[in-house]
């Protein structure tokens, strides 16, 4: 038996279906191989595998550039991640507040910044106040946008804790702060973590907007390398830079899965394993 023995969409394949799948698989494999070959040959015809275009990556100065770019990206990501989580917790607390004005204010802020394109915000911040330090325009923009999204994640996580939990806590005489801090938040955190880290991946990807406001993060450095080298090696630079971003994001996603599986070890044993 294969590991995917059954699916909602089709029956377990019999001999004829297996033969058909095999044929489809071969056709599909040929098609994909053809596609890859086409990409490779058009790159090759354009002379993109010329050693001249790839030689810049042998220079220590260029390697240092890439490293600096990664570090700058991670620095902005770290600051923005902390900022967005702090802001998100505050806004979520505001949205769950018992006081009507606080609730309205937090709602307006969250809805506004969630609907705003990040580029527009970062560019306005850059032009208005941070022309000399684009990093802070980037960090503040990222923290505002992602903070609003995190606020919604945290709020829905807290709302998803069964009502009986808070009712029982109130019945025992706990105050609202105690109910939140002792009962709701600890339970909510476990269910929220994958979504929060998922949003952190978005934050990491969005640091590349620094390119638009000339902050020297990875993408900006990539462009500089390409435009300053002989033959303008944009394609080699993209082929090197994209995997770097993908690896960074996958590392964060991997962290999310790891935390999720750890969380499941403990009290949550009731949940059925993923099918």
């Amino acid at each position: 038996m294969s590991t995917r023995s059954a699916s909602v969409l089709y029956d377990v394949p019999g001999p004829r279906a297996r033969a058909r799948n095999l044929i489809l698989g071969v056709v599909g494999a040929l098609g994909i191989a053809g596609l890859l070959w086409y990409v490779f040959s058009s790159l090759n015809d354009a002379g993109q595998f010329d050693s001249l275009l790839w030689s810049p990556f042998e220079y220590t100065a260029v390697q240092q550039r890439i490293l600096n770019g990664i570090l700058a990206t991670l620095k902005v990501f770290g600051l923005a991640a902390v900022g967005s989580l702090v802001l998100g917790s505050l806004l979520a607390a505001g949205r769950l507040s018992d006081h009507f004005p606080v609730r309205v204010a937090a709602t307006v802020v969250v809805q506004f910044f969630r609907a705003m394109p990040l580029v527009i915000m970062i560019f306005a911040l850059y032009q208005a106040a941070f022309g000399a330090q684009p990093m802070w325009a980037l960090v503040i923009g990222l923290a505002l946008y992602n903070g609003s999204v995190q606020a919604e994640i945290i709020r829905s996580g807290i709302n998803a804790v069964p009502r009986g939990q808070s009712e029982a806590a109130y019945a025992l005489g706990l105050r609202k702060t105690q109910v939140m801090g002792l009962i709701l938040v600890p339970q909510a955190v476990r269910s929220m973590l994958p979504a929060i880290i998922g949003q952190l991946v978005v934050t990491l990807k969005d640091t590349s907007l620094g390119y638009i406001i000339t902050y020297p993060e990875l993408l900006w450095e990539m462009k500089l390398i390409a435009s300053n080298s002989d033959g303008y090696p944009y394609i080699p630079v993209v082929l090197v830079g994209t995997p770097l971003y993908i690896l960074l994001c996958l590392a964060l996603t991997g962290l999310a899965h790891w935390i999720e599986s750890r969380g499941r070890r403990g009290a949550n044993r009731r949940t059925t394993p993923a099918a």
Partner: protein
Amino acid sequence: MGLIFEGDNFSAFAEGFLRTIELSALSALFALLLGFVLAAFRVSPVPVLRWFATAWVTIFRNTPLTLLFFAVTFVLPQLDVHFESFTVAVIALSAYTGSFVCEVLRAGINTVPLGQAEAARSLGMGFGQTLGLVVLPQAARSVISPMGSVFIALPRNSAIAGAFNVPELFSVQKHLTEQSYGIFEIFIWIALAYLAISFTINALFSTLERRLAVAR
């Protein structure tokens, strides 16, 4: 606040607004098509197609959109492929959004319990009936809300196209800023335009969700 009515600012603003909508609508269409194809690959019984779609989705979901724009803007001309900047933007946005659409569809199909299909088959329904009458209608309902967030994000993401020579709202913002109008005033006008777009899409999807909702 009157800057919008000075000179030909309003026509530039209106043009940018329409261009943003055009770009988002076209990309939404292609992203939906691409997403459907990729999702079909991802749930297909043929392993090769599943691997291909998984690889595609992993690559495009983890690549920053700015990098994607950068790649199509600078890479295609080097291969002697010359498109207008608008076409290039549609390609980048569709490829990016399509992988998110694929994930939403796949997750939607996975939410349908296996028992539903088994029950349908044991009632004697054929493959087409099982799929069309039992599985897909249930999957469609659970897909609408996450699909809504993907398509609300699309016009927001399209703003990046402004940094790559497409004359839409972000370019209008840059253009007006260069003419030394108040940065905050410009921001308010651009913000209003985006708020209008995103609330319209939001309303559309919540209507859809209400129409298709089933009391459980």
